[in-house]
């Protein structure tokens, strides 16, 4: 595939029917009202020269290159800022226009270096292109240093690890500034000065790296010259071919063009036609791909008899044979159920499907679970109980139609940044925001965004808050009775339950810490503002009542009729790239693909017939159950696909003890991770750049993951799984990943219409995708719920057993930050460490002062299960009594302190509530003591 250059229509599309008819250079065209002349011309096949316009940004009208003549109109208006009108006759190429454009170009070039041949943007420079199309042959004012005052010596800012800012090449078109404002919504850039002194500045005169810039790359993408340029392009040169694929970081699932020279990846460019991101990106997806070629990659299989032995590099054949033999030996000695597997949300649907098939058809049990166990399993349970399936209800675009956004336990500017940009755009347009979070996350107050209500609840009291909101809706007459009567069941019982006085905001105020009036106001806003949309994250699910909370939110949405159309819904923001997909593919021990319980005879029958082997009708072990069973000796062999459970799962000591107790631990991963330290076999995994398959994002969008390069390990991961199955005596073979998807489609009704061919043809589809919805389903439950009627469920608030005590008086909650991802295996091996070299503990200054802790001190964080040491950062965005850390660095090991508590329905760990104590680290205390003991020098000494 050659380098893919997407068409640029100059200004954004307008919604509506193409009712405005006009002609451009004699060519008739019809466009929606509000469309610019420039865009209409492009749609008619006519390119109008431009520099400050690009179709990801609203028109600006500054460069004056896009001038046109319109019959009956005076002068030469800018086509980018001129809307079409019925019957308009537009001329884009006249002698007068040519002369004007050449004059404009002369002025630009008089203050621009003439170093095209050695410029990093050579061949990809719109200024260069415009010089060509305007027929520029001379610059009457001279050029470069001959042109008098100029900016040729303007300094270059190379402070950002991923891109340079070369001010000497800037034409001050403001595209970067507008991209930061309109697309990213960070407003980090500005044009400083006036007239000739105008220049792009990142904040108040600081380098990019020190500014508020979040390195999303939108400015680099928008820049028409080499002013903002990827360092990789500066170093390697322009790429020559593109492969469209899908990011492997968060659950937004952005589409990218991987741009290469030969097999060398030069840059990742967000793809405009990507349904999830529509041309936007974040610092991880855009830039942090260097881990894929990091020297730490494991490329050869390794085996050892005991995890205390040194590794022995072996051939694939030997490794696979070893795994198969040991798994069968364990089963022979300890029973069929003594082995199992864990799938990964970082792998493709096809890879996950292969593993669960291996477990069910070859291992002969249902001991397969996935890392979604520790993040969104309560979503699966809660949404299935209420709506009928485990799926976010909307597409991401839907947020643009929301009038009020209820954001609960999610921090999208850090964890789902590209979706956060969509959300911020809508908030800038006037939608209201309610934030339910103990922390004052950035969205509570950031440039041009301010939450109408921040319900800063105590950790662990989500259910009390959502019940109180529902109580207000029911008792203040805000229920959408028509929707409820027509679409739901169980309302009367639920209404009686939720109306009880114990659910009122006043009754729960002491529990939640949320002022009753504030909560009432938030509930009224949610119920009455028009389209109300709920978005939530792990701050909902990772609690002992996670499933209850998911059902509580579903109740609230149903009671107010906020389901089944644009702008509303209940939407999980999935943590990893393929959380949705790994769950869809039957990774849970009680469900076959498509969320169908293993006890359903007809469903099992489909697979039994196809696979030629019986499937157990009983659920298998979940991840925490596997650990418990490993410690009681009944579970002996585990295959872990692409997941670092030793770092990511709670109560590290317990996990380590369980892993150490196994007779066989097989780890398939890119790196020798923390889990691999307990492994007997380490099978090299493939990075997303090598994979061939699909990811399914948080909006159920199935995206192709196309191989940018051949597997560096020599094998696709699904091939390895098939070879293990074959070595265990089961004939499991596929010609390609496409054939695995064919089997998924054949056996899973919601995927019935999905194939690689379809995805290659239409780009992506959102499941359900079948005969009735051949190109997918952007919004679910439109005419009826998947389960028929939406079901109201009584959601009792049961407090967590984790309580702050005199010994552990603070509550710890955990999360992630923008530049790092999950256990950091990928991002720690990129330049992203420049922003986040270590995990820190955020705590309120009052809590710090009480403990004699200053900003930057090393502190000991301890809970009833363990302790770790990390650096303290004082922050008043934390409430008093609550502290926060991330789990990106194994050195810190935040999960050393998290506990065995878990969601009652799914066993999802309660990462968000751990009673802890924080104290100055002994070494820090010693230093402090020594400094205090030193005699104060006399004046002049």
């Amino acid at each position, binding site marked *: 595939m050659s380098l893919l250059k997407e068409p640029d229509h100059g200004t954004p599309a307008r919604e509506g029917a193409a009712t405005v008819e006009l002609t451009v250079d004699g060519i008739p065209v019809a466009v929606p009202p509000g469309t610019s002349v420039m865009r209409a011309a492009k749609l008619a096949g006519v390119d109008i020269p431009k520099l400050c316009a690009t179709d990801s940004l609203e028109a600006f009208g500054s460069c004056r290159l896009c001038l046109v003549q319109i019959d009956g109109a005076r002068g030469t208006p800018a086509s980018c800022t001129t809307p079409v009108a019925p019957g308009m006759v537009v001329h884009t190429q006249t002698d007068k226009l040519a002369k004007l454009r050449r004059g404009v170009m002369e002025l630009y070039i008089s203050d621009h270096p003439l170093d095209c041949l050695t410029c990093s943007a050579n061949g990809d420079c719109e200024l260069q292109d415009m010089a060509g199309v305007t027929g520029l042959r001379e610059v009457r004012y001279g050029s470069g240093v001959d042109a008098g005052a100029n900016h040729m010596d303007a300094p270059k800012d190379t402070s950002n690890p991923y891109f340079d800012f070369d001010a000497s090449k800037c034409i001050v078109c403001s595209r970067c500034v507008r991209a930061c404002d309109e697309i990213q919504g960070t407003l980090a850039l500005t044009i400083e000065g006036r007239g000739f002194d105008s220049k792009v500045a990142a904040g108040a005169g600081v380098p990019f790296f020190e500014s508020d810039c979040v390195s999303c790359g939108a400015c680099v993408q928008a820049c028409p010259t080499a002013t903002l340029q990827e360092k990789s392009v500066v170093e390697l040169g322009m790429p020559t071919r593109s492969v469209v694929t899908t990011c492997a970081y968060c659950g937004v699932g952005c589409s990218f063009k991987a741009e290469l020279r030969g097999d060398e990846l030069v840059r990742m460019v967000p793809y405009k036609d990507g349904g999830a991101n529509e041309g936007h990106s974040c610092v991880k997806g855009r830039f942090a791909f260097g881990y894929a070629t990091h020297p730490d990659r494991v490329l050869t299989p390794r085996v050892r008899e005991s995890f205390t032995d040194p590794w022995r590099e072996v051939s694939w054949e030997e490794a696979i044979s070893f795994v198969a033999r040991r798994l069968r030996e364990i089963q022979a000695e300890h029973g069929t159920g003594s082995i199992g597997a864990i799938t990964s949300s970082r792998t493709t649907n096809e890879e996950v499907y292969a593993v669960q098939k291996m477990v069910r058809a070859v291992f002969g049990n249902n*001991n397969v679970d996935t890392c979604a166990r520790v993040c969104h399993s309560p979503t699966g349970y809660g949404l299935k109980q209420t709506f009928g399936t485990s799926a976010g209800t909307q597409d991401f675009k839907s947020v643009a139609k929301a009038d009020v956004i209820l954001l609960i336990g999610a921090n999208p500017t850090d964890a789902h940044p590209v979706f956060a940009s969509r959300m911020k755009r809508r908030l800038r347009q006037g939608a209201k925001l309610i934030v339910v979070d103990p922390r004052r996350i950035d969205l509570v107050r950031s440039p041009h965004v301010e939450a109408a209500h921040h319900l800063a609840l105590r950790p662990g009291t989500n259910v009390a808050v959502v019940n109180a909101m529902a109580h207000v809706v029911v008792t203040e007459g805000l229920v959408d009775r028509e929707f409820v009567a027509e679409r739901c069941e169980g309302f009367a019982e639920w209404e009686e339950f939720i109306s009880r006085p114990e659910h009122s905001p006043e009754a729960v105020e002491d529990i939640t810490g949320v002022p009753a009036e504030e909560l009432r106001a938030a509930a009224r806003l949610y119920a009455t503002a028009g389209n109300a949309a709920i978005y939530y994250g792990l701050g909902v699910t990772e609690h002992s009542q996670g499933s209850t909370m998911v059902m509580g939110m579903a109740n609230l949405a149903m009671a107010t009729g906020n389901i089944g159309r644009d702008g509303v819904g209940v939407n999980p923001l999935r943590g990893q790239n393929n959380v949705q997909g790994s769950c869809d593919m039957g990774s849970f021990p009680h469900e076959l693909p498509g969320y169908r*319980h293993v006890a359903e005879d007809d469903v099992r029958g489909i697979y039994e017939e196809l696979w030629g082997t019986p499937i157990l009708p009983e*659920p298998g072990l979940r991840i925490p*159950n596997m650990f418990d*069973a490993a410690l009681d000796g009944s579970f002996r062999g585990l295959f872990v696909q692409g997941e670092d459970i030793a770092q990511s799962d709670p109560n590290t000591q317990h996990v380590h003890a369980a892993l150490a107790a196994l007779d066989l631990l097989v780890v398939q991963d890119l790196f020798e991770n923390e889990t691999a330290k307990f492994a007997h076999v380490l099978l090299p995994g493939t990075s997303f750049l090598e994979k061939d398959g699909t990811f399914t994002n948080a909006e159920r969008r199935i995206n192709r993951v196309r191989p940018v390069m051949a597997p560096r390990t020599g094998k696709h991961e699904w091939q390895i799984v098939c070879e293990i199955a074959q070595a265990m005596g089961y004939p499991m073979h596929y010609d390609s990943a496409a054939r695995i998807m064919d089997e998924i489609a054949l056996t899973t009704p919601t995927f019935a219409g999905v194939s690689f061919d379809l995805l290659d043809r239409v780009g992506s589809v959102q499941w359900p995708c079948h005969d009735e919805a051949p190109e997918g389903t952007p919004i679910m439950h439109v005419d009826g719920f998947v389960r028929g009627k939406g079901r109201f469920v009584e959601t*009792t608030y049961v407090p967590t057993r984790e309580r702050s005590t005199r010994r552990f008086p603070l509550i710890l909650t955990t999360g992630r930050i923008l530049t790092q991802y999950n256990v950091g295996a990928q991002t720690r091996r990129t330049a992203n460490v420049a922003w986040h070299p270590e995990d820190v503990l955020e705590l309120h200054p009052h809590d710090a002062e009480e403990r004699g802790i200053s900003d930057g001190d090393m502190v000991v964080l301890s809970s009833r299960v363990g302790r770790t040491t990390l650096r303290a950062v004082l922050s008043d965005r934390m409430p008093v009594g609550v502290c926060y850390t991330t789990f990106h660095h194994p050195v810190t090991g935040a999960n050393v302190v998290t506990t*065995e508590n878990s969601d009652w*329905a799914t066993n999802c760990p309660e990462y968000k509530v751990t009673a802890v104590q924080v104290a100055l680290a002994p070494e820090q205390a010693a230093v402090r003591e020594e400094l205090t003991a030193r005699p104060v020098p006399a004046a002049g000494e």
Partner: protein
Amino acid sequence: MDATPPHVRLANDIAAQFAHKPLDEAARQVAAHIRSFWEPRMRSALVAHLAAGGAGLDPVARRAAEELRSASVR
């Protein structure tokens, strides 16, 4: 560290969610949940714990365990 066996702790967690229901109804729902989501050896461990006296089981969880036991006997 809590020394309660996992099957007891988890059964009690489930039971707490249904505590607002009448005992029999709550126990029925807890037993149904356990049947749907627990691997057989965990269910057996719970039933065995009940047979050994059921220490630490809350009333709803105990009744649910009894229901599971009678179902497995049948």
